[in-house]
């Protein structure tokens, strides 16, 4: 009977209760949708980071990362590849030669990290090849792309293949910077294994486009055989072995297995290789929970204030209830039920609205193309697909319930402090 009275009490002052419910609902809707938006954005960033930029695992000489020094390379790479291929968690292995280089055109130059890869093996580790649009295919299959002319011109060509002659694939940002297109020639200089300056001419075969312009500007890909030959490296020597796993969730297990396989080498997970990406992944959920807690804290004060008004308005009634024999525990629970039900009503509406909106936008995405330059500069895709998981929803529901419970304590204590004789005298 007490929960039923509490529920009826909520509707004694309809306007006031509705204002509180709408405030809670809007607060939660906004908080939840913003969380889903940011979560979607960060998950896309992490997912694209792993797909295109950083392999899930990589094996390096312990000192290679300091200066990309060719002396600190991995020898006997084919043997190591074979050993890695036996690990059940590893599905892709790409041996890479990596060096710092200077890329030049007739008018300008730029410092880059140059990757020498075996195209077929690289495709098992990185999906970068998918970001190069075959211009004919784009025209044929994607006629709805609004700025198709620009798109095709900027991001087109083909990925590396062994039958090409000194091919290079560069990012769209670098292409813009160097003012080059597909089939343009680039001169690249670097140090060989002996420290002698060397270089060669490469022809642009493809321009890739990701959501990270920094990556586009600073990295280029050539055939490993071409790069090894320029750097005077034996074929069995590579800078790193990039790995792709069957399941990213097994990252640490796989890293441990690889470490025990090559105790003298250093194994990096994508979190180690790209700390920013790791931080986005690790911190986002905590940040969003803190964000929701702050929203609910603010709403909690609104609820406490409302319930105090309720108590003040009902002093005589509460006095009567205590006079006729309603125990303090029951008075406390009645106020608590009323507060929790009020909070939950707003909470359920807000969560439903928020989740509904997330569902509506999670497939179509939210197009932020007008901010795409800024977003791509920090590595984010201009189309964001909001996403929320059930764990986060349950957590928010639990937080709403906790807010209701905590917010009820102060008003309920105020009610318990009333003395029936004095309360009954109030007008």
């Amino acid at each position, binding site marked *: *009977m007490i929960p039923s*009275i509490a529920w*009826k*009490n909520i*509707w*004694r002052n309809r306007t006031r209760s509705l204002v509180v419910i709408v405030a809670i609902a809007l607060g939660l809707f906004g908080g939840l949708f913003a969380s889903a938006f940011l979560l979607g954005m960060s998950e896309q960033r992490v997912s694209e980071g792993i797909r295109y930029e950083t392999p899930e695992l990589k094996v390096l000489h312990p000192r290679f990362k300091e200066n990309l020094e060719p002396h600190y390379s991995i020898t006997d790479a084919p043997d190591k590849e074979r050993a890695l291929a036996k690990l059940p968690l590893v599905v892709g292995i790409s041996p890479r030669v990596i060096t710092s280089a200077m890329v030049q055109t007739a008018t300008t130059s730029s410092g880059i990290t140059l990757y020498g890869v075996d195209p077929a093996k690289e495709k098992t580790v990185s999906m970068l090849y998918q970001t190069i649009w075959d211009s004919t295919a784009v025209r044929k299959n994607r006629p709805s792309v609004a700025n198709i002319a620009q798109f095709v011109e900027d991001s087109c060509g083909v990925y590396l293949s062994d039958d090409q002659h000194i091919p290079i694939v560069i990012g769209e940002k670098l292409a813009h910077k160097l003012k080059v297109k597909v089939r343009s020639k680039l001169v690249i200089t670097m140090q060989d294994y002996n420290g002698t300056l060397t270089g060669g001419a490469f022809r642009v075969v493809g321009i890739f486009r990701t959501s990270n312009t920094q990556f586009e500007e600073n990295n280029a890909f050539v055939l490993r055989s071409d790069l090894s030959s320029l750097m005077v490296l034996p074929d069995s020597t590579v800078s790193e072995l990039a790995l792709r796993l069957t399941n990213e969730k097994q990252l640490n297990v796989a890293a441990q297995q690889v470490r025990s396989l090559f105790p003298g080498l250093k194994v990096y997970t994508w979190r180690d290789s790209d700390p920013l990406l790791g931080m986005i992944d690790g911190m986002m959920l905590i940040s969003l929970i803190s964000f929701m807690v702050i929203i609910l804290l603010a709403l909690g004060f609104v609820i406490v204030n409302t319930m105090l008004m309720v108590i003040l308005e009902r002093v*005589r*009634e509460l006095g*009567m*209830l*205590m*006079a*006729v*024999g*309603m*125990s*303090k525990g*029951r008075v406390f629970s009645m106020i608590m039920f009323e507060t929790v039900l009020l909070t939950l009503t707003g909470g359920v509406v807000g969560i439903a609205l928020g989740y509904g909106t997330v569902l509506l936008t999670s497939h179509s995405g939210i197009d932020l193309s007008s901010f795409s330059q800024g977003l791509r500069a920090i590595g984010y895709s201009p189309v964001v697909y909001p996403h929320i998981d059930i764990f986060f929803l349950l957590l928010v529901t639990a937080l709403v319930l906790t807010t209701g419970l905590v917010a009820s304590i102060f008003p309920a204590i105020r009610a318990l402090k009333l003395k*029936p*004789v004095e309360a*009954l005298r109030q007008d």
Partner: protein
Amino acid sequence: MNVIEIKDLKKIYRETEVEVKAVNGINLTVAQGEFTAIVGPSGSGKTTLLNLIGGLDTPTEGDVVVDGTALSQLSSSQLIDFRLRNIGFVFQSYNLIPVLTAEENVEFIMHLQGVDKTKRRERAKNLLTSVGLGDRINSRPSKLSGGQQQRVAVARALASHPKFVLADEPTANLDSKSTATLLDIMLKLNKEEGVTFVFSTHDQRVVQKARRVITVEDGKVVSDVITKNGRKEMADSPQ
């Protein structure tokens, strides 16, 4: 058999330098089945006396013994439970729960006592019928007149099978017709079911119906009279 015994009861309010003796040494007994009015001018201490009898206030000195239990010996939570099971209250301003129907208001006390739903619903209906509101059991207080609300309050006071009912100026807000109806109902319950009523009042119409009239002035009992009705009642009683 005495249901209420009041021994040297005092309630003194101290406000800065001034000391107000709201109840100043009252000794009284109220027997089972009485229909007693406490009268006196405003500020004479009637309401304070009722509050002390009902265990809503604590005396400065003396004690109230209800059916053998000294209220001063009970802790605050025991006192709440004691009120629930032994004392019915009727207030001047009805004080019904506005979100509940007449039936639910009466049921509520029994719910607090732990009576099961079927029994409490049946008793609530019977009580409301006995106060003439059998056809208004589903009405909320806002749909009832003042007199009807006070009758619901009487039914609520009786719901817990109390040892006695305390009513503080129950007719103060009622017109003469509603007052007469309410008094008839209270007298009927007193006579037919032996319910003990103790009430404070200013209303001469109520005083005339009482069987015992206790007059309080300056916190003291100045007269305690069995009225003509009371003497007649005693003469009519089998004892």
